[in-house]
Structures are given as C-alpha cells and as structure tokens.
C-alpha cells in the first residue's frame, strides 16, 4: 500500500476521533441577556470577563452572550411575548415581577434567589445640569421653580423614570409637614416643567445632551457620569440632591426559558458572577454602586454620600407603588394631563 496514503488515513482517523471527542465535551452555548437602556457598556465588559472565565474553566466551550436593550417595561413585555431571554437584568423589581404574574417565567420568589433582593448593584437618581449650573439647581424643590425645564423619560415605559418620579415624591413626603397631598402637588408642579417625555433613559439623555433641550436632566447616577465623561467633557455637571431613592435594578434567570434551552446552570453562574469581587468592580467602574464593601471602598470617589431611602420604606414596595402611581388611571395619569 502506498505509505503516503496510509499515513493520510491515519491522520484522518485521528482527526475524526479528535473531532468526536471535541463534540462530546465542547458546547456552543448562547445566552441572551435582556436588559434595560443604560447598561450597554456595563454588560459589554461583564460579558467579556465572564466568557473568558467560563471558557477557561470549561475548555472547549464556546460561549456567546447576546444583548438586547430598551426601556425596562418594554423589555419585560417582549420577554412575556416570547423573546427567549435566559436572564433578565432590568431596571426595577416590578418589571421582573410581571414575568411571574403574567407568564410564570420566573418563580414567585425570584427576588430571594440571589442576595440583596436579587439586585447585585444599586444606583440612585441625580441631577445633570449644564456647565456652571446657570439655573442654580441644588435640590428637588428647585425643579418646580418657574422657568426651569426638566428632562425625564416617561414613567409608563422607562424604569429610570419611575425611580425619578418616586424619588421626587419621596423627597416631598420627607419635607417638614410633608404628606400625600403635598407630595402630589409637588410632583405635579415638577411635571409641569417637563417639555418632552422620551420612552427610555437613552432617548432622554440624547434629548438633553445632543439636542440641548432642558436645564436639568433627572438621570441614573451611572448615566449622568457617562454623559459627563463621554459626551460632553466640561459641558455638564452632576448635582447631588439632599436626598434620593435607592434604586435596585433586579436580575433573574428566566427559568422556564433556560430550562428548555438547557442553560440554567450557566445562566445562574452568569448572574452570580455579578456578585463576585470582579463583577462588583466592573459595576463600580461603570458607576453602579456595588454591594461589596471592598469594591465600594475602592471606588468611593465615584459615589458621593447622600441620604437614600428605599422604595419599601417610602412606598411599601413595588407592587403597591406601581398600582398607586403608574397603572392606568393612577396618580401619574392624573398628574400628567396637559
């Protein structure tokens, strides 16, 4: 027999075996993370770190993590309608909760599955103003002044905007002599100063930063830093009000989808990665307040002190707040009639 041919056969055989072995252990895995608007840059970095860690531990695996971003409420709706998310990382607990109440995609106790109410990082609502703060905006009560134009997205579709609204309401409640009626009047006066309502946080940022509309932008803390650092160095300033709300963006494995796709294990590992020191540091670098004290201390300069109240303290939890304020015919609908 031709020795060359023989060798060739051997090589072929070995190659085939190798291929078979490879197929047996290596997997092509795709995860879909459905998230809200401002987390694009954060999860780009998280994904990179998690993928290299996972592939190092599971040689042969090829992991791809896909991203989808949009207004938090809209994204939750898409997942309910069949967008095959393995994990959701949304702006607020309510939007993850509807995945249970509307479609049983997550278990009822989803917020107990991970530490800190399944919110691996927190954030808050701050003010972004134009350089030099020409309108002298210092605190929430300045937002209701005449001639101050306030930019916030629509609380009906945007998670961040719901935090904005509740932060303003909570501020009014905490003022001396504050009560529900005064809070309603305060928020109403504030929304009188809102010229446009964008659907999501990103659209609102663009309105304020690119189109130059408005004197003050109620923004996620991380989004405000992004605007200052990336978009208009020297054009904007961040103002910390006296008090604001502790925003807890929640994450969950969409168990029904992950189970079907066989990705439960890796989806869980992905979310747990957010709680590791590495994940927490990435979050802190992107101006999300980490839960880890170590990471917080390391990036303390990013996070000035301010008084924060939780939604449970001020509103008795998301379900109540949503029903009272944002459902059809709720407080917001009555406040925002033009």
């Amino acid at each position, binding site marked *: 027999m031709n020795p060359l041919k023989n060798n060739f056969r051997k090589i072929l055989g070995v190659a085939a075996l190798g291929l078979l072995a490879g197929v047996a252990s290596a997997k092509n895995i795709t995860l879909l993370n459905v998230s809200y608007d401002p987390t694009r840059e954060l999860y780009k970095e998280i994904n990179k770190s998690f993928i290299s860690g996972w592939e190092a531990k599971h040689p042969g695996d090829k992991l791809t993590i896909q991203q*989808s971003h949009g207004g938090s409420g809209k994204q939750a709706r898409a997942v309910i*309608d*069949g*967008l*095959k998310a393995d994990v959701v990382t949304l702006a607020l607990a309510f939007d993850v909760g509807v995945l249970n109440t509307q*479609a049983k995609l997550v278990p009822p106790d989803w917020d107990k599955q991970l530490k800190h109410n399944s919110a691996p990082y927190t954030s808050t609502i701050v003010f972004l103003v134009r350089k030099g703060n020409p309108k002298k905006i210092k605190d929430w009560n300045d937002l209701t002044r005449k001639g101050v134009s306030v930019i916030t997205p629509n609380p009906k579709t945007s998670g961040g905007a719901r935090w904005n609204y509740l932060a303003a309401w909570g501020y009014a409640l905490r003022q001396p002599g504050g009560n529900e009626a005064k809070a309603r009047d305060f928020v109403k006066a504030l929304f009188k100063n809102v010229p446009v309502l964008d659907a999501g946080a*990103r659209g609102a940022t663009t309105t304020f930063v690119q189109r130059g509309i408005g004197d003050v932008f109620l923004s996620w803390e991380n989004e405000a830093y992004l605007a200052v650092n*990336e978009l208009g160095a020297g054009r904007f300033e961040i103002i910390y009000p006296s008090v604001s709300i502790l925003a807890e963006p929640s994450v969950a494995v969409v168990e029904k989808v992950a189970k079907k796709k066989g990705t439960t294990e890796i989806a869980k590992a992905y979310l747990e990665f957010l709680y590791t020191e590495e994940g927490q540091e990435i979050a802190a670098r992107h101006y999300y307040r980490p839960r880890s004290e170590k990471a917080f201390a390391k990036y303390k300069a990013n996070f000035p002190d301010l008084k924060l109240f939780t939604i449970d303290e001020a509103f008795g939890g998301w379900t109540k707040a949503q029903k009272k304020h944002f459902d059809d015919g709720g407080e917001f609908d009555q406040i925002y009639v033009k």
Partner: protein
Amino acid sequence: MPSPISPAPAKNGPEVRQQTPRARMRDAVGEPPWMRRLLIGLAILLISVILLVPLAAVFHQAFAKGVDGYIAAITAPDTLSAIRLTLLACAIAVPFNVVFGVAAAWAIAKFDFKGKNFLITLIDIPFSVSPVIAGLVFILLFGAQGYFGEFLSEHDIQLVFAVPGIVLATIFVTFPFVARELIPVMQAQGTEEEEASISLGADGWKTFWRITLPNIKWGLLYGVVLCNARAMGEFGAVSVVSGHIRGETNTLPLHVEILYNEYDFSGAFAVASLLAFLAVITLIAKKFLERGVRAEIKAAENMVPEQGALHS
C-alpha cells in the same frame, strides 16, 4: 442662432404667434418670467432644505471620524450581521411579493370575478395600516401569549423575536408594491394578445411566459425596486418583532438607532449612509424604469384602436 420662425411673431403680431406652439403655451400659462423664476427658485430652495441638506448632513456626519472611522463602522461585526439580515429579509420578501403580485395582478386585470374589488382593498391594507400595528399583529398571533403561541412553543418554533418574524413583517409591509404597480399596466393591456396566443394553440403557461411577462417587464421591475427599497428601509413593524438582539435580529435601520443611542453618532450615520446610498440608487433606477412603464402603457393604448380598426 435665432431660428427662422422666432423673429416672425414680433413682426406680424398675434396672427403668426398663434402658429408657434411655444408662444401659445406662454400665453396659456400667462405668468410673467419673473414669477416663473421665483416659483422655480422657491421649489429648488425647498427641495434643497428638505432633501439635499439632510442627505449631505448624513454623509458629513458619517465621515466625521474620517474614512477609517467610516470603514470601521460599516465593517463592525454587528453592522455586517445587520446587513446580512436586511439582505436576507429582502431576498425572501421581494421574490415572494413578485410571485404574489404577478398572480394577483393577473387575476385582477385579466379576469372578472366576484369579490374583485374586495381583493384589491385587501391588497392595499398594508398601505393603510400603521407599521407598528402590523408588527403587533404578529406578536398577537405568534407571540408566547398569542393565539398560536402555545402550539409554536410546544414544537420549538420561534417566529417573533427571531429572523422569521422579521421576514414576515417585511413581507407584510411590502405586500402591495408589486401588485399595485402591475394592475394598471395589465388593465391597460387588456386580454387581446393572450386570447390570440391561446387561440393559436399555446397553453396558459406558455402564454404567460411569452406574452404577458414580456409585456409587463418594466412595470414589474419598477415594482421590485420600490418593494426592495421599502423592505430594506422598514423600521416600525420590524422593530416590534425584532427583540433587538445585537448581531442576531437587528436590521440596518434598527442598527442605526442602536448606534445612535450608544452615542456612536458617526457610526450611526455611516450605517445610515448605506441606506441613503440605496435610496439614491432606487431613485435612479426608478427614473430609468418609469420611462419603460410609460412606454408599456402607451404601447398598450396604441394597440387597442388598431385592433378596433381591424374589426370594422
């Protein structure tokens, strides 16, 4: 060089003026030259402000980071995948609509049947329905909570928030383009040529390939160009069913929005310039094809009296 006729009107007055068509037209319109110039100037100004300046702005922004930035933006993996998906959607939607459009136009123009007007109205629905509604309809039908949601998920079929949904939505919004373009051409042509062909022994299929199709080729091409332009540019309906998964279910227009929202303005406009470029090609093709379509209709109209004369 002055033509021999032109000095004549000045000399001989209205009598001769009547004979030159150009002079007669000027009288009929009756606008003094300054007025005409003003109107033309206004039209050009308006077109510049509304069309040319934005188009120039798109290209200017696209090259804001130089040629390298432009090339980097349109060769980024997510952009390439958006281009692929857009081309795929067109590659399915356009042939589908060609087959459907020819069949529908054929049926409507060459045959009389009950419910013909109803069929024409049905074909027009995508024109009158907002694209958002078109997208939501598919969610309502094929979404997880939709009428067929359970069946689809039991059989592991993913329509919405995946490529098939995007193709479906594209087909829906481009549905009328080919049919709408062909119906008037076919109606003007009538059925005489087909009748002659069949009476000479050709079968229906042969008649279609040899007689009908060559007669409508310009109209068909025109419809294809319009259909393709809309298929590539569609935003609303596709946005609803896309799910916005990067590198997977983003078409070119959706990708423009994503880049814009990521503050990558020059990237967004670089990708937008691809769409603008397509629009320019479409315009040129349209101009070119319109001539063919007019010739087709004219040929059909000329044919009718000839045949009438033959009969008498």
